[in-house]
């Protein structure tokens, strides 16, 4: 895993790849980055000069779903090219080395590429105030490892909702005190590629962008690349016309569901979820949740685990307040009853104590 100083263009030509092949690579890259084809020439020019960066991948409190997703990215040739082009110097799951050797590789890469390498993180980690014992690697707390690696990183890419927002480990009541990467990293650029897991093409798309332009893509307020997270599922959903017409499936097996109507009433979180599923799709572009008839869970949004039932429509409160309502009603009845009874007593008293108006008193006013 030595670093090559060749540009991508040089490296591709060395592999005997024609200009057509290169253009095709660029077309695929543009598509992956969700950029319009009109940018292919500039992508080509940039890629021609791109150099392979060093990447360190840290996995904390996670389920490896994000790595699974990345390795299932549906354009292996291009992916290979990109992975060939980057230098993945440390990845728990994928690397061959283990134990001290693995940790040594990491330290070495960090030293050699100080200030240059990309740090990818999947999984959330126990915050600085939590018990570090919830998650350690080689005896070091996640927090210490993250801080050590961040120090020399050019940028941090948080892959998955756990790394981006805390995700499942941070779900109420958050026993491990899990926090997201951006909660801890304030002095380095952080890109969040949220999703549980993220769309595989989105992970590689962000890498491709960095590779192509040597800078991070434009981000939204959650530090997510706008190219992928700029529009909601709802806005790009092919079932949107049914929503607009008010045609909804009400159960999973009714005529509306079979006719492919909108899944809002079955709990679809598409309106409040920003992700690229509707265009990128899953499983080699085969389909995506809504196309397969299931409402969007909103997995790329913060706290989606705590946002009420997956099958409750978006407009339904997360707390069913029957108890509160009853308690408030009873209190209201007691207080209201008391106040009103007092008022009634007062009226009676005023009536009883009322001093009659006499003619003499009236005459005084004349």
């Amino acid at each position, binding site marked *: 895993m030595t670093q090559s100083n060749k540009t991508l263009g040089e490296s591709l030509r060395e592999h005997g790849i024609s200009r057509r092949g290169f253009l095709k690579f660029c077309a695929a890259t543009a598509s992956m980055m969700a950029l319009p084809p009109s940018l292919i020439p500039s992508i080509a020019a940039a890629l021609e000069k791109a150099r392979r960066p060093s990447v360190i991948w840290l996995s904390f409190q996670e389920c490896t779903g994000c790595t699974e997703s990345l390795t299932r990215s549906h*354009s292996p*040739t291009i992916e290979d090219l990109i992975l060939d082009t980057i230098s993945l110097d440390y990845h728990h799951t994928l690397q061959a080395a283990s134990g001290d050797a693995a940790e040594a590789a990491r330290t070495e890469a960090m030293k050699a590429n100080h200030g240059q390498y990309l740090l990818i993180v999947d999984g959330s980690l126990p915050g600085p105030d939590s018990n570090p014992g919830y998650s350690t690697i080689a005896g070091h707390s996640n927090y210490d490892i993250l801080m050590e690696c961040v120090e020399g990183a050019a940028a941090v890419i948080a892959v998955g909702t756990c790394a981006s927002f805390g995700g499942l480990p941070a779900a109420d009541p958050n026993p491990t005190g899990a926090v997201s990467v951006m909660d801890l990293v304030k002095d380095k650029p952080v890109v969040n590629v949220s999703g549980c897991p993220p769309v595989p093409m989105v992970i590689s798309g962000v890498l491709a962008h960095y590779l192509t332009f040597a800078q991070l893509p434009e981000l939204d307020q959650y530090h997510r690349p706008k190219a992928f997270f700029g529009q909601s599922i709802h806005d790009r959903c092919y079932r949107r016309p049914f929503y607009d017409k008010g045609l909804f499936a009400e159960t999973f097996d009714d005529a509306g569901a079979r006719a492919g109507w909108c899944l809002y009433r079955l709990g679809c979180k598409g309106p409040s979820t920003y992700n690229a599923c509707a265009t*990128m799709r899953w499983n080699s572009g085969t389909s995506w949740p809504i196309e397969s008839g299931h409402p969007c869970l909103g997995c790329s949004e913060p706290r989606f685990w705590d946002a009420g039932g997956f099958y409750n429509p978006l407009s339904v409160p997360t707390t069913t307040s029957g108890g509160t309502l009853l308690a408030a009603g009873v209190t209201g009845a007691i207080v209201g009853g008391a106040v009103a009874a007092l008022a009634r007593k007062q009226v009676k008293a005023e009536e009883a104590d009322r001093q009659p108006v006499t003619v003499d008193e009236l005459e005084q006013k004349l």
Partner: protein
Amino acid sequence: MSRLRGIPIQVDRHTDPVHERGNALPILHEVRHALERLIATGEGTQIDLNAIPFGPGDVDRLTAILGTGEVSATIQALGPTLIQETAIPGVWLVDYHNSEGERLAYHIEIATTPRILGAQPEDLATSIDALDARLQSGSGDQRQAS
């Protein structure tokens, strides 16, 4: 992964004409604008069909409407790229696949010739060297070429 395509996912659709066209309609209008531009200025356009939120079957409907034209070509570079002229001259379907047959990108290109189809100037620079090399190396390659 290509086996996934074998899973018969089918969604019932209304059969009225508006539903039939789905999201294909706006793309057709975009193609029309691009054609006008091509005629007026000679400027070509590429539309990335992967970036369009199509519903099931929309792409098939789109290509069915565009029809099949006279030219079809296959480029073998990093896997096959299938080029098909549509029944509308100047409108091409360019389908990029990897060597495992999976689609990398799918474009509609509005141009006299798809850009990727013509010989590339960057490659031309090495053409004479390549030909010279073959001339010098004897007849073996020439036989192959004939």
